[in-house]
């Protein structure tokens, strides 16, 4: 479904994303993890056409989409969400979601479909609220609903769980699972390890712009290189000593 080949992006002298290659098969949930500043969000921006890569290729569903503008990538069925939620402020929840739904629909059909999607993500009783009046959990759901309304084949979720309390996280996890069950491939950036462990089929770990580990959630979290990347040099040893 998604294949990245030696994808690279430099800002000034700094390699934000350095030769990242990965393959995500259709119908799976992949997770891109790594410490802050590792280049995960830049990676998403490269895939979704918000930034042009310096080198490397992005192939989506068999089509080379490298360097395509963002709206065309989205129309192809690859839709992203934003880490910092980006609602259409001043518009209602329903209007927000309808924008996602109107790509292939008339305005009226988009509004009706948006209401369905809202119900699916648990915003069914908030349709007429201004988007900016929602609490953080609601905004995250809105971000998700808007992307879902665009009926993506591949959904890029950038930290949809960040800022949610454990109860809210527990509510959203089955939602993501249901998205996959409905046939959408998912690639997520996530810091909430509970989500990665329970949802992801494949995990890629990014540090300083490069992939340092790949595998199942279990194998990756046991990888000393990963622990060091997160907690600093020597952390794996210290951690082993402390327990």
């Amino acid at each position, binding site marked *: 479904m998604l294949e990245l080949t030696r994808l690279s992006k430099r800002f000034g002298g700094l390699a934000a994303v350095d030769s990242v290659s990965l393959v995500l098969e259709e119908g799976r949930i992949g997770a891109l993890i790594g410490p802050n500043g590792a280049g995960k969000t830049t990676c998403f921006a490269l895939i*979704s056409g*918000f930034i042009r890569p310096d080198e490397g290729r992005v192939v989506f569903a068999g089509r080379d989409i490298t360097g395509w*503008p*963002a*709206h*065309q990538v*989205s*129309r192809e069925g690859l*839709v*992203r*969400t*934003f880490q910092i939620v*980006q*609602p*259409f*402020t*001043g*518009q*209602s929840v*329903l*209007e927000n979601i*309808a*924008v*996602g739904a*109107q*790509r292939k629909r*008339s*305005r*009226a059909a*988009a*509004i*009706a479909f948006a*209401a369905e999607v809202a119900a699916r993500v648990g915003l*069914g*009783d*908030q*349709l*007429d*609220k*201004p988007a900016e009046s929602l609490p953080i959990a609601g905004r995250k759901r809105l971000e998700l609903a*808007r*992307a879902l309304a*665009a009926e993506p084949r591949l959904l890029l979720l950038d930290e949809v769980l960040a800022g949610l309390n454990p109860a809210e996280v527990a509510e959203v996890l089955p939602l993501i699972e249901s998205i996959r069950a409905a046939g959408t491939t998912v690639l997520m950036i996530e810091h909430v390890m509970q989500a990665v462990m329970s949802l992801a089929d494949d995990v890629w770990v990014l540090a300083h712009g490069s992939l340092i580990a790949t595998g199942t959630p279990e194998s990756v979290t046991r990888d000393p290189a990963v622990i060091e990347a997160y907690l600093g040099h020597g952390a794996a040893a210290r951690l082993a000593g402390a327990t």
Partner: protein
Amino acid sequence: MHPPQSNRSVTGMASSIEDSAPPGRGSFSRSARSGQPAAVTHLLGGTMRSVRVLGAIGIVLALAPLVLHSDFQLTFVTLALYSTLLGAAWNILGGFGGQYSFGHAVFFGLGAYVAAMLQVHAGVPAWIGLVAGVAAGAAAGAALGAISFRYGLRGSYFALVTLAMAEVFRIVANSVPFTGAGVGMMIELRTGLADLQFESRRGYYYLALVLALVALAVGSWVRHSRFGAALAAVRDNEDAARALGIDATRVKVAATALSGTLMAAGGVFYLQYFHYIDPSLVFGPSVSVEALLGPIVGGLGTVLGPLIGAFALALVSQIATHLLGEAPALSMALYGLILIVMVTFLPRGIGGLGKLVRLRARRGRDA
């Protein structure tokens, strides 16, 4: 809280000014007819509500000459409608699109000059001048939009570039011979519907009314259409819009073209009404200011904002003239003051006033 339905539409007008606002009740309540959430029904009904309100306003204004006897009254409403046209044109791009142009005189002046040049140099009838002028406005809008937005101009930069464009056109019109240079252009007086000139003031009144209603109807279409939803999405969050497959540049260019088209019609009307144009009159900054002031006063990005703003400003300027005597500079100064006051205290315009009051009231009830 579930306020009764009647609360929402004391008059059809109030509900339509507010039509950007969601219905004031929980969307758990489902309308009996469709079985859809109330919020959905409300949003779907937007077009019909606007059509009804605009239709009602159209009928009232069409009948108004029966009671407006003096030329003075007729002229007052005619010029307010003309101002509505300019405001509605600007509102497409500035209100619904969030791109503030300070140089809408470009389209206005082009419309006026193209029509005047065709009439004077080629002797074509005025209605062809209107069509050509409007087409020129559309083309200029598309071109200006394409240049500006392709290069990623936003916010204040866009405002400044449009302003500079208007200056360029003013200087060119001032310098080349076929526009009559600084002397300007005078068109012949030749009355008749095809010539868009009339013996009685009523003729101009109805011409202004038709143009203003068309412009408001276009605004209403933008407000409730798929295109308008895309435009508002780009205005409210361009990145999010792009992520959902909206070609932001294209949408903004289209809005500029649409806006330029209507603005050019304003220029042609000006030409037919006053029979005379010169570079400062039609490309000068006061035209651009008049276009943006109405919607800002009446309510940015609302269907009726330009109408409310234009009539409110016309009224204020009448009162000012009455109190201060004939001092056009002072009433312009007053316009400037109104602009400052509106932006400072009522950024949603007069149209937003109702919403503010209602919000306060609801908050009071809830408390």
